């Protein structure tokens, strides 16, 4: 297995060490996006539209997307 993997954040390829998580991909992509995700100003989803946590694991080729939050609480987000 390669030591580094490539994942895609908002369509852009991002290289991270294997075993790293969603938060690391956001840090590698744009630290401001990571800070916004930590504050809950944006939501992170996978390619199916399911919400994913910042500590979630990533595999090669994973696609994650960020978008502004629409609701005060994410349980209402669809």
């Amino acid at each position: 297995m390669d030591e580094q993997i490539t994942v895609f954040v908002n369509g852009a390829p991002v290289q991270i060490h294997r075993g790293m998580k969603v938060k690391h991909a956001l840090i590698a992509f744009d630290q401001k996006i990571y800070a916004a995700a930590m504050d809950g100003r944006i939501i992170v989803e996978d390619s199916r539209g399911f919400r994913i946590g910042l500590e979630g694991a990533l595999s090669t080729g994973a696609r994650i997307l960020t978008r502004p939050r629409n609701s005060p609480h994410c349980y209402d987000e669809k």
Partner: protein
Amino acid sequence: MNRSSRILLLAVGCVLAWAIPGHLQASQAVPITILHMNDLHGHILPYLDKTIREDKKVSGAATFAAIIQQERARNPAGTLLLSAGDMFQGTPISNVFKGEPVIEVMNALQFDAMALGNHELDWGRDALQQLRTAARFPFLAANISSTGGGGLEGARPYVLVSRHGVKMAVIGLITAEAAYSTKPAHVADLSFLEPATVLPELIKRARGEGAGLVIVLSHLGLDADEELARKVSGIDVIVGGHSHTAVTDPVRINSTIIVQAGYYGIYVGALGLEVDPKTSKIVRYTTRDVLRPVVADEHAPADSNIAALVERYNNEIKAEFARVVGKSEVDLVRQPMAESNVGNLIADAIREAGAADIGFQNGGGIRADLPAGDVTLEELYTLLPFDNLVVTMTLKGEQVLELLEASGDQHTRILQVSGLTVVYDMSRPAGSRVVQAIVQGEKLRPEAQYRVATNDFLAAGGDRFTTFKEGSNLVCGDTLRDVVSDYLSKHSRVKPEVEDRMAFKN
């Protein structure tokens, strides 16, 4: 819309939320409910998480226990309660007691089985065995092989359970990436096998033992679960974890139903199946809204026994937080744009823990100054509030030089260093300001390889130190707080000083 119209719509919605695969009828089917959690990471206390809700706490064992009991009461003889792993590591209340409070909660809730997650190996094998011994449910890991033969000690590949006369095999799988994300000493004698290679034989064996339904309890992540469902036939349900995905509506790949309940106990998953007891075929299943939010507000149900259990540990953790982990003879003071004594101490701890040539810590990750005297565990949490891990990697000297140049650029907070000294000439152009770099008493050689220890934030390229992303032979270690705590315990009294590890001239 009038009341009757709303009721009609609700009824139609309920019908539509159940799928009927194939040509089978549900008339004689029996209900099976699969309740599930994953990636709890020790969150048995409610917590405020702005990424989920801004106004109310979420999760907490007392609330999710009550939800589980409510769901179970709807189908008491037909309910399974499963965990897809990573239940223990992650919060002080669980970490300090090495997962014991979580096991007690899980025992009280009568979990039927748990797949091992990669973080179950974080505290080493002895700690894992203590948890397994305390658990009144099996730990499952079908794709771990040990050099001594067999699998991981005490873990079973699968377990058979019956509900309403339907015999089910629950097979546990762990991500093969555990080999990368776990401290090497904890997995040195283990191989993590490709799930798709071990699963067909296990399914065959379980079917031979009478299993009608096959449930894979997976700590692989949703992408891998989908791939598994495409590659391996005969899996009825995958209850997943690892990717922390809130699968609000089940995913269907071929004939396999896949679910996952987010993370940190913010949801309880509740998948309803109707199964033909004669053929063990799933004739219907819930297709929408299978996650129950766990909001710990005043209206939420709470299990008083679980609340008492958690409160007992919470009181103990308060005492533990007052524990003195070390002593400092001097105030520990940050300097965001210069070398600091607390930065030196932390970088030294990182370097020692990683048995590395060089240690790096980002100044922004140090969040408090501490007065001279006793250093308590609580103070360590204020000093280092982020859940960073220490990681060690190999970098070439020229890459170390790039990092030092980026640090000296001073557009962002500088790196705190250990194992090296560096002199900058600030009159020179950015990118060529390092005029001297000494590593372990010798001049840094651009072509040489160095073992470099840092934290996972920097390893991901944080604070624009992107060269860390190019490191090789990455090894994960303990949390930064644990590393600093151990360092203080070992070296106290400490007296870190600013000692010109970084000198800026002109």
